[in-house]
């Protein structure tokens, strides 16, 4: 998704990591973690894609992912996919321990909260469901945003509610998914923010699509884009 639709997110993430003196490598053979197939019930297809992921990233020290949902797929569901194959299961487990969601990597590995970012914005943060509930990420992105100069952070009310994306759910149940997105848009408007920040490109695509359809001039940014702003 970042490769084809949101390349600026990947570039921003690399910029932030390099500014913190990490050597960034992009293994060209990478494609997808397999979640679309897994969540749609295609276990064999998901397994094949996950296996490719293992092959591509096995040599990396730390794999930083600009998505809570993809991270959760790798750290939580790969083990399940390979439950019947102990050798691959062990590889998946070892890899999972080196996979980091971007905001977690910054706060826990890099030990950074202030990355020197500056962005004039009234922002609100949308918790992706998998980042929040599967990975337990709540404070890391907020701590990072709190140190961005010029940025005021406002919480959504209700907080932690799904934007309605849900992968193939967004098109299998398009009308329902759209209704959920509009609920999120209402909450964003109530917050008075002019910028929506999230850890997940897929949530951002859903929210941006609904904001744009509603004719609202509110921008969506990945956390990496905010942190790369100067």
């Amino acid at each position, binding site marked *: 998704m970042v490769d*084809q639709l949101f390349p600026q997110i990947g*570039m921003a993430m690399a910029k932030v990591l390099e500014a913190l003196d990490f050597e960034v490598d992009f293994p060209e053979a990478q494609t*997808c973690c397999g979640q679309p197939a897994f*969540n749609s019930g295609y276990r064999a297809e998901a397994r094949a894609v996950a296996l490719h992921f293992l092959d591509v990233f096995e040599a990396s020290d730390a794999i930083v992912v600009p998505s809570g949902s993809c991270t959760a797929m790798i750290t939580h569901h790969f083990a399940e996919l390979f439950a019947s194959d102990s050798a691959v299961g062990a590889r998946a487990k070892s890899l999972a321990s080196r996979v980091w969601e971007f905001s977690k990597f910054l706060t826990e590995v890099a030990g950074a909260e202030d990355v020197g970012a500056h962005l004039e914005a009234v922002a609100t943060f949308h918790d992706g*469901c998998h980042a929040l509930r599967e990975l337990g990420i709540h404070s890391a992105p907020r701590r990072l945003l709190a140190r961005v100069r010029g940025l005021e952070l406002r919480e959504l009310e209700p907080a932690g509610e799904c934007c309605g994306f849900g992968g193939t759910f967004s098109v299998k149940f398009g009308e329902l998914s759209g209704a959920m997105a509009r609920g999120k848009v209402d909450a964003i408007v109530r917050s008075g923010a002019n910028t929506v920040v999230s850890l997940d490109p897929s949530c951002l695509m859903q929210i941006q699509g*609904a904001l744009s359809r509603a004719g609202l001039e509110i921008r969506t940014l990945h956390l990496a884009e905010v942190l790369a702003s100067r």
Partner: protein
Amino acid sequence: MSSQLQRHIHDTLADPRLQQAIYTATGRLKDARLAVIADNVLPDYQELRTQANLLKQHAIDHLDYYLEEFQRNVEAHGGTVTYCRDGPEVADFVLSLAKQRGAGLIVKSKSMTTEEIDLNERLGHHGLESVETDLGEYILQLAHERPYHIVAPALHKTRYDVAQILTEKLHAPHDIVIENQTALARSVLRQKFLAADIGISGANFLVADSGAIVLVENEGNARLTTSAPKIHIAVAGIEKVIPRAQDLAVFLKLLARSATGQLLSVYTSFLSGPRRADEIDGPDEFHVVLLDNGRTRLLPNPERRQSLYCIRCGACLNTCPVYRKIGGHSFPWVYSGPIGAIITPQFLGAGHEPGLPFASSLCGACAEVCPVKIDIPKVLLDLRSEVASVKTGRLEKLAFRVFAWLARHPRAYAIGGRLAASLARSGDGAWIRRVPALLNIGPIRAWLSQRDLPPPPPRSFRQLWRQR
């Protein structure tokens, strides 16, 4: 896939009054729960959930043992236990008992298990009147509707709806004052309680070590149902058994809090057997009917078995962003919301409504609030894999096969992505309408019916990265 489900969803979304009713009622229940599980009110809430989960796991893993113990103890108190495979067997049991005792009128307290087997309708076919005595259920019985919510069956009815139902069905004067509506129902139901020969209840818990059933309620109608008539029949799913009375210390702390945000429900009744010689009230006969109706189908699968832990608190419905939009009647069976989405296909067989496990964004809010920690998203994913292997269209299967192939062939993956992007690129937001071929693709059409799609960027990340 699932056109009926889609139609129900569409109708509910299109009804602003209904949308408001669902959102308000579930919001109230949701907030009430949050207030009574807060750290400063119930600091050991998470430990209680873990304990409840372990107790249920143990009970379901040893279901045969505890059911036998329960039966022995019920019989020792002078009650009977009858196993029924399905709805018709339960109806036969009640009908033959009614015939032997010359019974003509039944009062009922709220029970999802009897809703599940359409017991009232089955008895009605044989001329046996069975009256619901829970206020919400009574209103729905008059309106010929099934429950909208596990705990709040008439959640979708406003006082104006109720006024209309009471006027139409009972020829009462039109009255929108809730207290007056309640008083009217009460006066009708009092007469039914006094005249009834049999009372039918469900059971929230079957306690193995004491041979007792536990009923949790707020209106007192379950107490009347189980004590006024001479015969009490409790109908319960086999999964309701718990090992010991002391386990209730865990479950009762969680049930009312999760369901309605009460610390305890108004009435909690422990019923074990018919009236003893030295007791002043209670029924002459006490019968427990234990229902399978598809439950044993779940037992062989250790992953899915957890679906049987459910204590029917409804917390997952109140917090579910899908239920809060589509309500209870969009679901194909009496069990709605996240728990309905996992038990319906398992109890009835996956062929029933293959789209149901897919009607979820997998946000996980349900698992977060479940007092017995059922991992609902995990079971949904498991059910999806079963449906995908047999029920989905050839086109979808092919699409995922192509996806998996492309994902293992990075060069083709990159070229394919750029090809699609170059077909679709244009400077303004209306880019997609210039590509009629894309509009014919189902998923793209479904996306665009609700939202815009960002124009693909001129270069992929791969290309930008190489150019650095």
